[in-house]
């Protein structure tokens, strides 16, 4: 069959099971857009900025576990993808970005809208391609999807010159195994490693599991629960690991790290065994590495061999698929009890509960924590939430417990403000039957709020929650603690978000009192379209606990108990 390069792209996307592409047209990608007219089964979502396309593909991928697709033209279209690609890279999210490029003959001539996007994205993609030969195109797209979704997933970019898109070649879809001799993701642990890990688990008196994003990506939630229950090992979660273990499970202690539950951080510091599963000891999780969990032996399972011994030296490092390795461990794992240890953790948890802001008198103020807590209550704790980056993100992580995998999406590694709204739109395309809530701050929302138009044009429903404190709240918090309250460039002039929503035809509501929150959830559910709810919250709320950057994990700034003075 004689097809153009652009048609081959479409044929390949269909064979990869792609349902939706997020993109923005332009000169060098026009042949691909023209080919779309012949393939109506592939839905295209027109974004307002290519960064939105990458985040939507990312949100779609995180919500579904499938590969998200973003399409952009050459030059500025491609560079606008960069932040979204970096976000996907740091959080191991499988996306494939297809960019147009100037014609092969013009490459290197600084042609109009020419940019070296494979060079630019080299360090922030898992792999990338510049297609030089149209006959290679089908192979490359097949490889791109394979690389994106297997092993440690990540973004792959395919840059296609315009004349390759136009050139007609004989197309036959490449069948059979993909030949990538240098690409061999590890899978299982060997017997020595398993024996060593089991021995450490048997000896441990104060073990704790650190469960990360890898649990979700490899679908190992059941294994995690079984391991934890059988050996009675408490579980702590990374930010991206939320949903790996039901948070109402008695053995789930909560989130660890900079704004994690104090009980988790104390437990990690005092433990005699860390079992790190599909997580990478990020600095936001460890605090000061020199004093991190000083008395523990450490088992680390991660699919990426370069993560083993990168930040934290471990006693047993296993490069493998976390689900496979946990399955291997479970065949030999004995039942154990750690009642004393679990009781000690429970004490820390109770102390944390006492300090909870929800126990504070509101005095007419509306706190972000209350908004999240009540959203959790009135949505039945079962929504898909997509947060942006900042205080509201940490409040979401603290006050919206999740029970199911892939229901809490956020930019953890790169911390990309502006992620929330477009990623929520992408997630909704992936999970149309679920209720999707974008929880954003007034700062991050304004970075990508142009995607409101995308939501309306495409008829996709997300419930947008803006926690508006008229500040870049997390930066302000750092300025309060570490820069003597010099609030340089953190107070925000904001538009009237209600009128802004109205301009797009989006139903909107402003909430200023806690007793309106239940009504606001009803309001969101009463509309078929995207809605926007602005919660005008206390301006100078602080997210506690907080491990200052580089401090010891147990040296948290804690919220005082009611009646206590701030130390």
């Amino acid at each position, binding site marked *: 069959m004689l097809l153009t390069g652009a048609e081959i792209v479409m044929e390949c996307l269909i064979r990869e099971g792609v349902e939706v592409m997020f993109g923005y047209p332009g000169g060098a990608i026009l042949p691909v857009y023209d080919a779309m007219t012949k393939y109506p089964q592939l839905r295209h979502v027109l974004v307002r900025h290519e960064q939105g396309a990458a985040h939507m593909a990312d949100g779609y991928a995180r919500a579904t576990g499938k590969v998200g697709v973003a399409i952009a033209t050459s030059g500025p279209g491609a560079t606008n993808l960069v932040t979204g690609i970096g976000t996907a890279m740091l959080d191991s999210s499988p996306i494939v970005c297809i960019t147009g490029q100037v014609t092969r003959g013009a490459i290197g001539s600084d042609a109009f809208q020419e940019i070296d996007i494979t060079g630019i994205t080299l360090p922030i993609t898992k792999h990338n391609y510049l297609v030089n030969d149209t006959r290679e195109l089908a192979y490359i797209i097949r*490889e791109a999807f394979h690389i994106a979704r297997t092993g440690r997933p990540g973004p792959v970019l395919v840059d296609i010159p315009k004349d390759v898109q136009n050139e007609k070649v004989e197309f036959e879809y490449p069948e059979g195994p993909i030949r*990538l001799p*240098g690409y061999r993701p590890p899978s299982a642990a060997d017997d020595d490693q398993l024996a060593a890990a089991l021995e450490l688990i048997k000896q441990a008196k104060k073990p704790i599991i650190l469960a990360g994003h890898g649990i979700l990506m490899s679908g190992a939630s059941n294994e995690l629960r079984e391991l934890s229950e059988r050996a009675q090992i408490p579980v702590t979660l990374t930010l991206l690991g939320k949903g790996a273990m039901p948070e109402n499970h008695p053995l789930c202690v909560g989130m660890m790290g900079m704004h994690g539950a104090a009980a988790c951080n104390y437990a990690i510091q005092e433990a005699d065994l860390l079992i790190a599963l599909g997580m990478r000891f990020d600095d936001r999780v460890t605090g000061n590495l020199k004093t991190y969990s000083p008395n523990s032996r450490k088992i680390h399972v991660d699919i990426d061999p370069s993560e083993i011994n990168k930040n934290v030296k471990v006693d047993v490092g296993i490069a493998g698929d976390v689900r496979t390795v946990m399955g291997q461990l479970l065949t030999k794992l004995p039942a154990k009890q750690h009642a004393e240890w679990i009781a000690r953790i429970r004490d820390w948890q109770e102390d944390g509960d006492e300090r909870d802001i929800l126990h504070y008198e509101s005095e007419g103020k509306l706190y972000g924590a209350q908004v999240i807590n009540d959203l959790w209550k009135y949505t039945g704790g079962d929504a898909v939430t997509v947060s942006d980056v900042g205080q509201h993100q940490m409040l979401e992580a603290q006050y919206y417990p999740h029970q199911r995998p892939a229901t809490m999406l956020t930019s953890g590694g790169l911390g990309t403000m502006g992620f929330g709204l477009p990623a929520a739109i992408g997630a909704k395309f992936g999970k149309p039957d679920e209720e999707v809530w974008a929880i954003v701050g007034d700062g991050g929302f304004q970075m990508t709020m142009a995607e409101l138009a995308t939501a309306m044009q495409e008829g996709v429903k997300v419930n947008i929650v803006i926690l508006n404190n008229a500040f870049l709240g997390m930066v302000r918090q750092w300025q309060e603690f570490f820069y003597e309250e010099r609030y340089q460039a953190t107070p925000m002039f904001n538009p009237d978000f209600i009128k802004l929503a109205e301009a797009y035809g989006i139903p909107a509501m402003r909430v200023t009192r806690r007793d309106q929150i239940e009504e606001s959830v009803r309001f969101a559910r009463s509309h078929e379209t995207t809605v926007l709810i602005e919660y005008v919250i206390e301006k100078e709320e602080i997210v506690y606990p907080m491990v200052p950057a580089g401090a010891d994990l147990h040296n948290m700034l804690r919220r005082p108990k009611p009646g206590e003075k701030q130390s």
Partner: protein
Amino acid sequence: MIENNKQTVVALVENKPGVLNRVASLFRRRNFNVDSLTVGRTHKPYISRMTIVVDAARVDGRRIAANLFKLVNVIDVKLVSEEPYVSRDLALIKVRTDDADSRNAVTLICERYPARIVDIGTKVAIIEITAQEDIVEALINELEPIGIVEMVRTGVVAMGRGVRILDVDADYEPSIVSSQENGNYQAYSV
């Protein structure tokens, strides 16, 4: 000995455009300090081989190997300095030989090294040496007082001793059609 502080990583990579760039980008991004990096073709036209020498005090060779292995175009990686291995560095050293004394000195020095004079005139001589890196260093030190005016080194290449063969699977062929047809791997510089 210099050798003790050095770790030597050997990587087999696909002979495709941009692969050296990917490796160099990795080192820069991860802040890996590299003493020397060489690359060249092997007896299989679609495979190139890199030898990377690092200072073990500054970076762990195993971390470099693990990160290199993640690159899709890197087929295999081995830390050859963990086991007995042979390593060679080649240098061309141009020294001032504008009097009889210096010419004699250069000749005598070269006799004590695996070195030879490949070009000599009334003003300068070029000495070629192929040897282990520390021997090359020693020769350079001896030539220094005579007057080195120009020098070039290839960087270290290395190979494990004995029958441990570092090679790709026998049935491996490049996946992409056109490269197979052309057989034109030489056209690509990695």
